């Protein structure tokens, strides 16, 4: 008697559970975003403001699976928007095409890399790309170990290198821009996925040299000395101004959001993207990233509203393009 009663109870609970599970999904308006942790702070800021503006009627979620992980989900149709710290790559375009996921590519901010030395370092204030290549290329491993090997005028002091780990988009971009090939780097340097660890490392060693995201330099200006990039004609120090006007090259690049065309047909996603482009300039500055020129956001919004889909990169990372030029290009699929 007692046993049958228990069985019935269990059965009822089970069915209630199943019923509630199946009914749960489609009800709320949710904008789902995943992707790069570099873009995350921008998207987080926009999501925060957007939810406030909509008084909680639309929910926004943001994950940090990384640019590659984000695209995997995006091309499976699991997310509405993908944060990306680099343009979509060929194999990702292919995956999206196969799942017939079409997308808008919208630049939302600049990400700049900064080359750093210790403030006590009195011999370096600028370097050329060739200097940096000499230090960081794979052939330098175990060979270029003192400063005077890079330039004879620099002291005979050990060269202590710090950089992000091989999984980070920053590493990909730096190697691409300096060495000429993504992921081609010497391996004998102190690597950390956490840029704060790199900050500490460089701040505590007179002979250190390293690179990481501009925002980490901005927060630690007293502990670090930024190295200007010598392009032959003039030395360009990293600053919001030089990044925005495109003279700080090749170490600055735009970062993007990719919006699924199908998802953009949903009013909440469309509204979110419009809100993104309209408010990005202000919010990007608040989180101490470098904003795009104002017309870049208007153009991006225009492309989105007129339905200009596809990528302008053709599946390859490119170094040193100005943002205006980007937005004028014709998209490919």
């Amino acid at each position, binding site marked *: 008697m007692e046993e049958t009663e228990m069985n019935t109870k269990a059965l009822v609970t089970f069915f209630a559970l199943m019923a509630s599970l199946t009914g*749960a999904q489609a009800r709320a308006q949710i904008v789902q975003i995943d992707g790069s942790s570099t873009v995350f702070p921008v998207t987080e800021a926009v999501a925060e403001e957007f939810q406030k503006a909509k008084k909680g009627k639309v929910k926004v979620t943001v*994950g*940090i699976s990384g640019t590659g992980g984000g695209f995997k989900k995006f091309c499976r149709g699991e997310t509405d928007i993908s944060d990306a710290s680099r343009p979509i790559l060929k194999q990702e375009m292919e995956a999206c095409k196969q799942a017939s996921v079409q997308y808008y590519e919208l630049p939302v901010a600049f990400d700049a890399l900064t080359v750093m030395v210790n403030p006590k370092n009195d011999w370096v204030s600028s370097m050329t790309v060739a200097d940096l290549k000499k230090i960081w290329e794979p052939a330098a491993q175990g060979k270029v170990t003192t400063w005077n090997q890079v330039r004879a005028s620099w002291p005979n002091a050990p060269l202590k290198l710090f950089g992000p780990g091989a999984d980070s988009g920053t590493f990909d971009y730096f190697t691409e821009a300096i060495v000429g090939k993504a992921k081609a780097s010497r391996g004998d340097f102190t690597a950390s996925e956490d840029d704060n660890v790199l900050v500490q490392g460089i701040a505590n060693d007179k002979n250190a040299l390293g690179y990481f*995201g501009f925002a980490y330099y901005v927060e630690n200006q007293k502990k670090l000395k930024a190295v200007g990039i010598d392009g032959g004609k003039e030395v360009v120090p990293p600053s919001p101004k030089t990044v925005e006007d495109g003279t700080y090259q090749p170490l600055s690049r735009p970062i993007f959001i990719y919006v699924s065309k199908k998802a953009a047909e949903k009013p909440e996603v469309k509204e979110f993207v419009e809100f993104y482009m309209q408010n990005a300039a202000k919010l990007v500055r608040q989180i101490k990233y470098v904003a795009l020129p104002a017309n870049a956001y208007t153009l991006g919004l225009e492309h989105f509203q007129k339905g200009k889909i596809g990528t302008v990169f053709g599946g390859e990372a490119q170094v040193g393009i100005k943002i205006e030029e980007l937005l004028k290009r014709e998209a490919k699929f």
Partner: protein
Amino acid sequence: MERNQSSRDNKTARRKFYDRTFAMLGLLATFIGLITLFALMIDLATDGAGRLSRQFLLSFPSRFPEQAGILSAWVGTTLVMLVTALTAVPLGVAAGVYLEEYAPKNWLTALIEINIANLAGVPSIVYGLMALGLFVYQLRLGHSILTAGLTLALLILPIVIVATREAIRAVPGIMREAAYALGATKWQMVKDHVLPYSTGGILTGVIIALSRAIGETAPLITIGALTFIAFLPDSPVKPEFPFISFDWLMSPFTVMPIQMFNWVSRPQEEFHLNAAATGLVLMVMTLAMNALAIYLRYRFRKRIRW
């Protein structure tokens, strides 16, 4: 005679010396553990205590460090741990009881036992990948609290099973024989004697297992836990019929370690303080969970009279 006496004294002195040495070493080992824990807590407290406030506990994440809070994170962690405990404890205890009391002693059982012991050493990211394939794509449970709870349950299942078996083994065989002698069936013997007597040991295992699960990040990021989420899961209690709802199980979520990880890697110092404060809260949550288990253990032990 005299010489014998003195050599005996020598030996005794030496043995006593070893005895004292070992006691000292043991004490030292204990202190190393304790000092590490205290150093960690003091470090977190000096950085994070200033950020602890009602506002911090009741706010969602924000781009402004001073407005940011951990509401979605601690609610997420609590619910995920609830699912984990409710899944792993019954399954783990049942499997442990079966292996110890029911399973025939043959090569198959031995194989299962070895496998379970090995499972406890599998890196947690592997569980995440498996859960992504099984729960998210095959069973279509989504990137949800349910998926996360089940994933962590699988992760700690081996620990619960092994702890259960150890606890059951500590119940003296005469208790079982006495129960049989009075005509009890195997199930009655297990239910009325073995389980009550071993509950204390089982709970200790459960504490260790849940403490491991609460700090996990990697498998949860793999199955799609979020980082920014500014709303709470659906309420489990409803004003209208049928009054309870399981919608929260399917809700997207984040957990404390993920929130901490995100804040630690941000450039601004203020976010690092938030991360330290989150660490403090996580530690308090772990201690609270353990305190509950210790209390339960105490209650069970008090009831036992042999």
